[in-house]
């Protein structure tokens, strides 16, 4: 395929965050002619979706769309990708911003060929954050099999003192252990904040047992357990004994729609849990599923997905809030007590794995000053205020297609600033 070159007059668009929203904003702007600087804090693009096994409602792999997007980036000379980078400050006015970008060393240059000799030679291990710490990689590592940029990285914090095994092993001279952090200034006509979300810290929800009981996991972790590249090679085994679960319960609104935790609805967890129920049922047709919910929220055509999942006789949907979770110390099974509000009865279920549908928390910690935040911490776009835009889950909890839609709109807002800056500048 051909590389897109040549750009519109005017300054570039700066996109903060290389997940689905950020990648989309960058690509859509670039394919309309803008030059773009895409800044991502981790060593790879793809964010949360790269860690997701399948999308609802199609049960298709996110890696498929990521492959297309990576290809679009590779073929587009208008996009500059900076990984392990953070925008620390923005100054200026719409059409004429200056951003300070701090780039941390990867210790592997673009001379890397992916041959893997560094990881083979590496004597140290690190916890694999891609798998939420459920597995380990070498300190010289490829973030995941489809990582883009397709380059190894070195986690210096995990290295043994004075070790240069990776550098010695690399015949291409791609390892540079002396790399230093650097600070760059990027000019931009507009900035799109697409820094995404983090799962709510489930340990803050006392009664649900996360962090205390081994077999209480979160929905994001469940995605890794189901993924072929995950810590259980896609088998969904429970953490305490690596056994297949006989019964799995989902606790909806784990933290969401609660004044003491997240007062808003995280919007995607209902569909996500229904989807994860299908993961379990496909792998273990005997496994029983129960899902405790307040309201099932599957808007639009997602209703079809809900009806299909609910039609499965192995899936019980119980309207009620979970009051208590206990662990059977002998089996490490969990006893989940809830009130079934429709029958008015108190129910206690024994399950082998409990999945908390933890909510979406906007990731605004790393954002430079200048963006408006709402009372929940989401970036709020203000009508008529140009230049700085939020897109995707940093702006509102939303599913992938809504994120892409939002980011495409944000790309247009940015394009307008580029066009205006070209006229004035």
């Amino acid at each position, binding site marked *: 395929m051909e590389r*897109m070159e040549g750009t519109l007059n005017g300054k570039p668009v700066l996109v903060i965050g290389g997940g689905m929203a950020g990648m989309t904003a960058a690509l859509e702007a670039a394919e309309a002619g803008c030059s773009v600087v895409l800044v991502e804090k981790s060593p790879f693009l793809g964010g949360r979706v790269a860690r997701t096994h399948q999308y609802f409602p199609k049960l298709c792999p996110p890696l498929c769309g990521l492959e297309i997007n990576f*290809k679009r980036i590779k073929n587009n000379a208008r996009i500059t990708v900076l990984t392990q980078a953070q925008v620390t400050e923005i100054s200026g006015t719409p059409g004429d911003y200056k951003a300070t970008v701090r780039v941390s060393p990867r210790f592997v240059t673009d001379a890397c060929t992916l041959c893997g000799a560094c990881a083979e030679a590496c004597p140290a291990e690190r916890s694999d954050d891609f798998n939420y710490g459920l597995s380990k990689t070498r300190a010289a590592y490829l973030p995941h099999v489809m990582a883009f940029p397709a380059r190894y990285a070195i986690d210096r914090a995990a290295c043994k003192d004075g070790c240069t095994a990776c550098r010695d092993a690399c015949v291409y001279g791609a390892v540079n252990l002396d790399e230093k952090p650097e600070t760059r200034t990027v000019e931009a006509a507009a900035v799109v904040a697409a820094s995404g979300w983090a799962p709510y810290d489930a340990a803050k929800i006392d009664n649900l047992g996360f962090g205390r009981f081994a077999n209480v996991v979160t929905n994001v972790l469940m995605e890794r357990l189901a993924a072929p590249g995950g810590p259980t090679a896609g088998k969904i085994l429970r953490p305490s004994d690596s056994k297949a679960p006989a019964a799995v319960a989902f606790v909806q609104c784990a933290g969401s729609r609660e004044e003491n935790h997240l007062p808003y609805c995280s919007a995607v967890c209902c569909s996500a849990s229904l989807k994860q129920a299908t993961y379990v049922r496909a792998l273990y047709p005997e496994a029983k599923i129960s899902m405790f919910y307040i309201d099932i929220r599957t808007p639009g055509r997602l209703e079809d997905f809900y009806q299909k999942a609910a039609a499965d006789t192995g899936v019980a949907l119980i309207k009620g809030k979970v009051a208590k979770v206990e662990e059977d110390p002998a089996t490490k099974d969990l006893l989940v007590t809830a009130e079934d509000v429709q*029958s008015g009865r108190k129910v206690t279920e024994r399950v082998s794995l409990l999945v908390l549908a933890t909510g979406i928390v906007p990731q605004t910690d790393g954002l430079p000053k200048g963006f408006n935040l709402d009372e929940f911490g989401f970036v709020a776009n203000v009508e008529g205020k140009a230049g700085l835009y939020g897109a995707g889950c940093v702006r509102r909890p939303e599913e992938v297609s809504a994120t892409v839609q939002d980011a495409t709109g944000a790309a*247009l807002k940015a394009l307008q600033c580029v066009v205006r800056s070209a006229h004035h500048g």
Partner: protein
Amino acid sequence: MDKKIGVYLCSGCGIGDALDMEKLAKVARSEYKVPSCQVHPYLCGAEGLALIRKDMEEQGVNALVIGACSPRVKTEAFAFDAKMVFDRVNLREHVAWCHKPKDEDTQMLAEDYLRMGIVKAQKAEPLEPVAEEVSKTILVVGGGVAGITAALESAAAGYEVVLVEKQAQLGGFVASLRQGYPQAPPYVGLTPEGMAEKIQEVLYHPKIKVYTSARIKETSGQPGMFDVTLEAGGTDVKTRVGAIVMATGWKPYDPSKLAHLGYGLSPDVITNVEFERMAAEGPVKRPSDGRPAESVLFIQCAGSRDKDHLPYCSSVCCMATLKQAALIHERNADAKVFVVYKDMRTPGQYERFYRQVQDHPLTFMTKGEVQAVEAGPKGGLKVSVNNTLLGEEVAIAADLVVLAAGMVPNAADGEAIRALEDAKIKAVKGDTENQRAEAAKKAEELKAHEGTEILNLTYRQGPDLPALRYGFPDSHFVCFPYETRRTAIYATGCVRAPMDASHAREDAAGAAMKAIQSVELASVGQAVHPRAGDMSFPSFALQRCTQCKRCTEECPFGTLDEDEKGTPKPNPYRCRRCGICMGACPERIISFKNYSVDMIATMIKAVEVPPEEDEKPRVLVFMCENDAYPALDIAGLNRVQYDPNVRVIPLRCLGSMNIVWIADALSGGVDGVMLVGCKYGDDYQCHFVRGSELANRRLENVKETLQRLQLESERIEVHQLAINEYGKLPGMIDSFMDKIREMGPNPYKGF
């Protein structure tokens, strides 16, 4: 300009350890006598790249074959002139990393891949993009909230806009609302929608030309050059536009179908839309006698989430009802408001407003199922509800019942309209009585589509976007929600999916962006998503066309029109460059400069088929380059071994597979053929919508070929593979090879 091929082989990353590089280079030098062939230990490094550039400058090399890693990596390093003949031979992920080093079979594999790469370069021609004068004007169809936003946002980016609205006034439904629910921080209280200002802005915008009381009579042409005839105020207006945003909105679900919820029983049962009209005009009252409504009961999902009515959720009705509850209390704090729902759906920050309304002491909400709406005492209504949270059936008296009726898209199903037309013709002109009767029956089934046209495209495949489900021309792709099957035509707002005004505004900005992008790409002769930037396009050797119409029917994007005889009329700007037409053509007359039936057939011929006694079977694997091919790369990255007797040929889409290749391969002694494409069916993953499905369908015809050749049908296998099933792919290949060995060699070997 004569083609001068240079072959550059990398021996790095273990390639040199696995292969005899000199022997490999000999294939290029001796067999094909390429003008330049060089081996370098680190081809993607500065020195290696300099070597290539030097040959280009000094030797005049103008066609490159790079034998190194997968084309999916080091793309930037090997990015030369985008128009030149260029091929990457995957010696690393598909050879060195997944097959036994220094092995005869591994070497043969590499040599075959190199042969295929060289003949491909021999057959390919440099690209000459078609860049014609294009219009960059955006046509927006529909002047409601989505259309107005699309128009203003496009204009703000500097583009001319033509806005067409069928009503006399702009603004659509949202303009008729007295107040909206809060869609921005702090997410409490009622807020105006602000449509009046936006309408003024559109009307006075120098870049926006507005036609009201207007409709589209005809849209012909292609992206960048759509010729649109509008009928506005009784006269025809012709205009040329580059892209189209379809924002035709929604209509309320027909309430006459809601008799089971009391509609029609009493004037005091109204829909949510009727409630808005009442609230905009004055106090909330009982239509029957004009007395104030002291108690109002809302029935949620009236028609929505109901398999007998609208199976989908209309998404906005929960928030709309909460707003209407707030409106009631704003005017009459003592009114009782009841809401009977299935699930309250107030996603994201909207939860805040839900709490606010719910906290009003006279708002009563319950999950429940409405059993009956009946006349109650004193002219009121009685609503019976069971399965409530109170556990028992309850009867609630209300002055007014509001049905939260759902949204139906104002769309037209282009494919269905075309099918209706075809059926109507066939009902008269069919060959047999039976055919005529069948066609008449079909025409009757499709009657509802009669006269529903909106865009009136002159496309062979129908006058409007094809519907996906429930009448929505929505994209099926999670990652690419703006993907439509008609290039440069984007649906937005409630015609695409049920959504509220706030989401419609965002959606419209996104659709405007896609429209802008499509005209910008058209202006330089490049394809849009998913092959954005592709400068190749199909050409048709029409003198050999037999008017079989396969290409015009199978193109998922309606690219090709037809003349009266059925000869295809290409529209390169509508084309997405998938090559499905090329795969469909039995006469092999469709080709791209860098992708053709002849090219792949030559690649197949370039594979050396060892004689039977060597016991080296040969199997061809046609793979979708978007999903299956990367999956095989990952198998290589994970150093998973599989049978080296396969030869992989990547295709733009499995749908571009022409069955002549299979016949060629089998008659040339290849022992088996495997096809690996994307999943198809309702949840298809094919980036070109129907490619993998069409390829599968074409295989039916191959069976005849096999019979003719007296070969076992098991020599061909077709698989659906998702990209994350990379762990399965080597096993799939190995078990097919086992089957082939069991069947024994193809008897045509050596012929």
